[in-house]
């Protein structure tokens, strides 16, 4: 059995595994350094890391080493097995997201036919881990944080999926590669040079997707499960050292993955105007283009995070049910009408 690269199955799988093991932590580190350390410091008029490496670039490595050195503490009343499993579940969910992200005509770990469906499904898994962490910590703050995360799930997961529906209808496919292709080969009133990035036709969908992604990532203004000033960290209040690092990595890696999803669905993905859709050179250039677009989207995510205050849980529910869900349903209806008429 041979894969897309013409290698044996085991060889291709190990290449993919190796790439994944390098790409995901690198992505998390990059976002963490660029946005969480440097950009936040610039926006909040503080200095930011300066000393470790040039411009403080090695600060995150130093932080990771610091976390590795710390003692691994379990609360006395914790449910130890669940407590230990929780960060792994959360991290696994963000790792699984990377499986379907296409970065070139062949540069994709697994080109699933139901790619977007799969991505939505595994991304919700992280809430399970959060709930496990909150429940198993035997801490009231953690419990409140975990339950908030569970309550939030319903509020944002629905608009998230409904926002994606518009794209799926327009692209005629659940496959992420096909969605990129639909944008690459689309035309705007007969003008096909830059394709048809769905952000133009699905702008409302894009907005809803970004708002819901903010909630999925537990970033401000929807960071109630973490809520540092109320719940002092929420579900991960009892975690130390490496286990906390897993939560942290999962948070940043998921931010990266969701920026990538937004790029693929709304910003034209890895395709570069002027190239053939299947041109092999795009396997090299595509990841670069993706990275630039991902950084732009991630910048918006973190920009909002550093600007806005936090909503209350009931206010989020109100916002989701009264604004986001009706809006996304209307978006689907309008998209459907255009699809049938045009």
């Amino acid at each position, binding site marked *: 059995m041979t894969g897309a690269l013409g290698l044996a199955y085991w060889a291709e799988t190990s290449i993919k595994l190796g790439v994944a093991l390098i790409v995901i932590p690198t992505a998390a580190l990059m976002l963490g350094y660029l946005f969480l350390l440097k950009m936040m410091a610039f926006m909040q008029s*503080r200095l930011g890391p300066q000393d470790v490496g040039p411009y403080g670039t090695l600060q995150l490595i130093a932080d990771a080493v610091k976390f590795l050195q710390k003692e691994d503490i379990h609360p006395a009343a914790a449910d130890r097995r669940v407590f230990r499993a929780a960060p792994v579940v959360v991290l696994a969910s963000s790792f699984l997201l990377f499986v379907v992200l296409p970065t070139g005509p062949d540069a994709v770990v697994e080109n699933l036919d139901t790619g977007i469906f799969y991505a939505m499904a595994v991304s919700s898994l992280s809430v399970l881990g959060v709930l496990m962490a909150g*429940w198993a910590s035997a801490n009231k703050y953690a*419990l409140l944080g975990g339950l908030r995360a569970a309550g939030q799930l319903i509020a944002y997961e629905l608009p998230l999926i409904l926002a994606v529906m518009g794209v799926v209808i327009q692209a005629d496919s659940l496959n992420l590669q096909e969605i990129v292709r639909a944008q690459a080969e689309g035309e705007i009133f007969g003008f096909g040079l830059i394709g048809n990035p769905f952000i133009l036709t699905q702008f409302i969908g894009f907005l809803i997707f970004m708002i819901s992604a903010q909630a999925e990532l537990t970033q401000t203004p929807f960071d109630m499960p973490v809520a540092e*000033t109320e719940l002092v960290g929420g579900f991960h209040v009892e975690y130390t050292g490496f286990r906390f690092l897993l939560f942290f990595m999962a948070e940043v890696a998921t931010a990266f993955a969701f920026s990538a999803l937004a790029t693929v669905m709304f910003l034209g993905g890895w395709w570069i105007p002027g190239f053939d859709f299947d041109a092999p050179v795009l396997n090299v250039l595509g990841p670069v283009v993706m990275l630039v677009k991902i950084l732009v989207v991630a910048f918006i995510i973190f920009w909002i995070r*550093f600007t806005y*205050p*936090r*909503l*209350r849980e009931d206010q989020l529910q109100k916002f989701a049910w009264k604004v986001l869900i009706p809006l996304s349903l209307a978006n689907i209806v309008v998209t459907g009408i255009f699809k049938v008429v045009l």
Partner: protein
Amino acid sequence: MSPPPTASALREQQAYVAAQAADARVNVELDTGDMTLNIGPQHPATHGTLRIACQLDGEQVISAEPLMGYMHRGYEKLCEVRTYPQCTTLINRIDWLGSFANEVPFILAAEQLMGVEAPPRAQWIRTILFELSRIANVSLFLGDMGVQVGALTPVFFAFRDRERVLNQIEEVTGGRFHPNFDRIGGLKDDIPRGWIAETHAVMAKMRGFCDEMEDLLMGNEIFQTRCRSVGVIPGDVALSYGLSGANLRASGVDWDLRRDANPGLAWDQVDWRVWTHPDGDSFARYWVRLQETREATKIVDQLLDGIPSGPIMAKVPRIIKVPAGEAYVSTENPLGEMGYYVVSKGGLGPFRVKIRTPSFSNISVVPWVMRGTYVPDIITILGSLYFILGDIDR
């Protein structure tokens, strides 16, 4: 040393511990009734070591009780074994963010007992420093309220701009936080050269900071949804709980000791107004404080232009002995009414000092206002009531 436990005893003990842990788990997991949540003593929202014992039903508060005393330092007693000039080093640690303002009412009370009055120049500089400490204190609140509702950025801006005010205070007094500058009969020193122009510039910067906070935080829709009609304290309730300062004015009560009971400082020499807000919610408290910071910069600007010439110290004996008597002087401090009831028996130090601090009374309304709110609202209400721990437990 006790003998090492035998194997069976060890097993028994381990079984006992395991059973205890299991019980604890079952209790944690199956208790569906009210939950007691201890906020503090170590909690970022309590600015120190305040503890609030809450009964929760889900996330809704059934009752909340503030428990204080974790940082009690016994200042009233300590004042009794010190001379009058020594007391000021202690009492400017009560409200540590607006420290010069703490010294003033105590010194005024001592002056009243001695029948001394500070010369006009000293009174004006006192008023300027008083208002500068108000700005330094309240500007931190303006940023910190953002942290309470989850926006981290404003507080860093607040720290950045407060530093300018602290620099001005430091240039005169030599201390950023604990100036210990006020003396019975006047001030320790005059203001340095060039200070007036610098302070004018800083006041302009602080007005810019207020505009920034209005844009960044107060005008934000999420901030308004979080704060409007949350923690409403009607005027009569506020009065009956002894609230003072901006918390009272935000409930629509037009009451300001600077205007109503000016104890001799220069507030009556300048043109300014008292801001009130009818709503009494968290947003009103933020709004009133923002306006007051602006107003304070205007007061300072006007005072700077009109400082009278003359000495900064009245004629007082080298060793201060206060004649027997009692005096109570209170001023409108950054947090509210701060008063000192000083009893003298003619010695070198006070016989008894009772300190009336604003935060202590302001916090007493917590059980009334917290009922039925949600856990996130506890934090915003606490933040908007704005207390300093040292001001509660003195």
